[in-house]
């Protein structure tokens, strides 16, 4: 992207709420069940059925709002009318101009702040599978099949202000939002299962100007990576149009992951006219102040606060390791290890690099490994191996180390190996002493070879420096 242009991005994130049942009926809210097994008169839109709102869904929606610093306001549901086979009633029950959560903001790890417009509740649609076309695509399909298990699953749609100005920032926003959704227990936020879905609005403007350009909306973003790629692509496409003196058309565009490009979704269909009106089968929602206070008081610490605390305990500044550790939910482990006497920076680095997507080890055992490494009892490589084993299978770190043959080398054995290496390579030693610091690696390598990797690299370096005087 050229520096002459700035992206203006707003994101709409739909997240399925982690309730036991659907938004308006007592069918199970479950992913991956046999098609059309979690359906009832209500979520199938059978004639005569009526919706009743799920209290827990309201509570989770309030958790999302309060975590995003929104105001919880009196709200109602509307009907959004359009025909599509994945909607059993041919209207979607959704909040419209009176949503439950209004305003708010999200602070990103880099310190930037993205405004939240609203976070409202709505019901999910069913799922269509397209048969007879290429690769399950809707284009060229012969017919489609509909599964209504997902129909009526509660969603919260979180709409950001157009405060995002790069693909990286958009990705950071989604990652941060996912962390919050998981932290407050509102959603598992799994994009691969569709429980978190993103639509992106993007327009371009000349750097340094405030005017908003014509935006496009990108759909079918199935991962954070897709989001980044699609935004970069769409930005280039729009810049190309604008620099050629052409207009960007306001439209919805489909991201094609394989081809790496967006394409217009316009069909012959007339412009949508959703004919919103208040849903007469539901009554107004006005969560009492006491309920809101109770929900707010029960909220766990949010990622921004957890990052600050972790950085403080570990004695480091804000950085990628801190963000990763919090995002992965490893911060309590690291803090416990530090409190048990482990080195903060080491605990942070080992957690961020060795424990991502692994089972959580016992905090005391984790601290023990870190202390063994700091004390020279284990080399870095050995410590990582012990940690991996500890996370996967548990056990006593000393026992694991012994079982792996990580015997502690007596200091004199290492010193002897160092001295032998110096004697064997007088030329290199002379240059090292003469100031060629990078030759330390050469000698460490020799010592490691002689001790079969059991020497601690840091201890060897220290000895080399002592010998060089």
């Amino acid at each position: 992207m050229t520096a002459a242009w700035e992206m203006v991005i707003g994101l709409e994130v739909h997240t399925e709420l982690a309730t036991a049942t659907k938004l308006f009926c007592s069918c199970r809210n479950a992913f991956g069940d046999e098609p059309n097994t979690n359906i009832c008169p209500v979520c199938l839109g059978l004639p005569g059925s009526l919706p009743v709102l799920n209290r827990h869904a309201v509570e989770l929606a309030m958790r999302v709002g309060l975590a995003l610093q929104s105001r919880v306001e009196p709200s109602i549901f509307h009907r959004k009318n359009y025909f599509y086979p994945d909607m059993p009633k041919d209207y979607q029950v959704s909040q419209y101009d009176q949503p439950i959560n209004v305003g708010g903001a999200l602070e990103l790890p880099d310190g930037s702040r993205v405004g939240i417009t609203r976070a409202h509740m709505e019901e999910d649609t069913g799922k269509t599978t397209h048969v007879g076309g290429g690769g399950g695509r809707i284009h060229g399909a012969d017919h489609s099949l509909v599964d209504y298990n997902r129909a009526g699953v509660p969603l919260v749609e979180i709409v950001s202000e157009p405060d995002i100005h790069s693909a990286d920032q958009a990705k950071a926003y989604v990652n941060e939002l996912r962390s919050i959704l998981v932290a407050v227990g509102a959603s598992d936020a799994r994009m691969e299962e569709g429980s978190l879905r993103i639509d992106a609005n993007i327009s371009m403007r000349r750097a340094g100007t405030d005017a908003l350009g014509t935006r496009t909306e990108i759909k079918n973003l199935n991962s954070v990576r897709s989001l980044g790629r699609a935004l970069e692509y769409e930005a280039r496409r729009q810049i190309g149009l604008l620099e050629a003196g052409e207009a960007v058309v306001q439209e919805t565009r489909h991201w094609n992951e394989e081809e790496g490009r967006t394409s217009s979704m316009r069909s012959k269909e007339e412009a949508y006219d959703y004919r919103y009106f208040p849903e007469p089968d539901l009554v107004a929602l006005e969560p009492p102040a006491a309920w809101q206070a109770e929900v707010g008081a029960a909220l766990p610490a949010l990622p921004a606060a957890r990052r600050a605390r972790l950085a403080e305990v570990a004695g480091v500044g804000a950085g990628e390791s801190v963000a990763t550790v919090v995002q992965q939910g490893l911060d309590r482990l690291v803090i416990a290890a530090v409190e048990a006497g482990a080195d903060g920076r080491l605990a942070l680095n080992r957690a961020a690099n060795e424990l991502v997507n692994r089972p959580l080890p016992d905090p005391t055992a984790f601290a023990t490994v870190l202390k063994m490494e700091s004390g020279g009892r284990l080399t870095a490589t050995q410590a990582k191996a012990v940690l991996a084993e500890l996370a996967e299978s548990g056990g006593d770190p000393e026992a694991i180390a012994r079982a792996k043959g990580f015997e502690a080398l007596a200091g004199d054995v290492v010193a002897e190996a160092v001295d032998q290496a110096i004697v064997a390579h007088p030329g290199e030693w002379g240059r090292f002493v003469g100031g060629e610091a990078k030759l330390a690696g050469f000698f460490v390598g020799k010592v490691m070879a002689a001790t079969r990797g059991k020497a601690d690299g840091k201890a060897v370096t220290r000895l080399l420096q002592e010998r060089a005087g």
Partner: protein
Amino acid sequence: MTALEIARDVRGGARSAREVVEEHLAAIAFREGELHAFNLVLADEARARADEVDRRVAAGEDPGPLAGVPVAVKDNLCTRGVPTTCSSRILDGWRPPYDATVVTRLREAGAVLVGKTNMDEFAMGSSTENSAFGPTRNPRDPSRVPGGSSGGSAAAVAAGFAAVALGSDTGGSIRQPAALCGVVGLKPTYGLVSRYGLVAFASSLDQIGPLGATVADAALALEVIAGHDPADSTSIPQPPPALAGVLSDGVDGLRIGIVRELMGGIDADVAARVAAAAAALEAAGAKVDEASVPALGLGLSAYYLIATAEASSNLARYDGVRYGLRVDGEDITAMYGATRAAGFGAEVKRRIMLGTYALSAGYYDAYYGQAQRVRTLVIRDFEAAYASYDLLLTPTTPSTAFLLGAKTDNPLAMYLSDVCTIPSNLAGHPAVSVPYGTGDDGLPVGVQLLAPALGEATMLRAAAVLEAAGS
């Protein structure tokens, strides 16, 4: 025999439920071919059910307040495993997998369901001529309509096919046919009776209610079907009203207003019966004078905008995907259009069109939004009137039963026959039509009593006074 008498006899062992149901089935066999009150008669099921009631009586159990009472329900009330058509081709072949709450409550009260009654398609109409299965005829004069949309239910009670029947009332669909067939028809307060299992026409206006030969029968049926239902978010969280004990309390001291705005455009013979009813109430000790509820003049237009808008959305689901009729098309849009064109009758299409228009971009504020504001005005004017009156009195319909075909080509004229009944639906208030003599043509005239929300008991006291005075 009234429902009250049947239940008393069956519970006491004086008569068997089987004997009662056979009498009613015989009446159906004799005259149903002429009247067509039913879409479906459940003769075998009714006999089996009656036998079950009799077994319970023999075992010393009490089958309930409607023990052995033959009941008919409008064919827009879901009955598990039994076709529920709304008199529409679009629900062809559909058998609901569940019972409406009112159907469950009738059964639990010991009632015997004898059939599903004919109606205007999706309850849209005032004559039961808009049925895909042909019209119902008025038992009092088969050349005339029974009114609608609950025409089959009104005819079933008037013809003695069932002791009581359930209908639904969105703009007068219980009261208007009750008036035209000479029976009692009651629309309860919105939220008093669960709508769960009532196929929706206009959700914010629809309410289920009873039709009976007497005020006491209607009250009995209402006591059975009323009461909170957690499956309906708009159900009032209160126990059902106790009505039986108050029906004989009279109207001494009640203030009753005749609504001036609803006396214009009324046939002279109907207006005369309203005046006679007022005199009867006065003679019984009520204070009756003329009341003004100005916004009611706007009610009809507001009603048709709100009801059709909600209907256009409620009826979207009939799309050929999950149940009912499908007419194939080369793609889904073609299938939708062909299915709905073939499945809906002219009146339903007209209302879907009107409602879609009223909600569409550019017209929402002028039509739907405006109609909702008028609804507020109607409610406010009612509130003002009820500051001075306990009840209001009006005709139920502007005229007695009209001939089949008389209004089928003029939708607006048909809509105008609901002018007196619509305001209670807009306000969510209860109203009852009570037979009060006949018009110049010898056909029944109904007068209507209106009450504020949950004013059923007071309203039925006055209805009982009129019933006694008129007979």
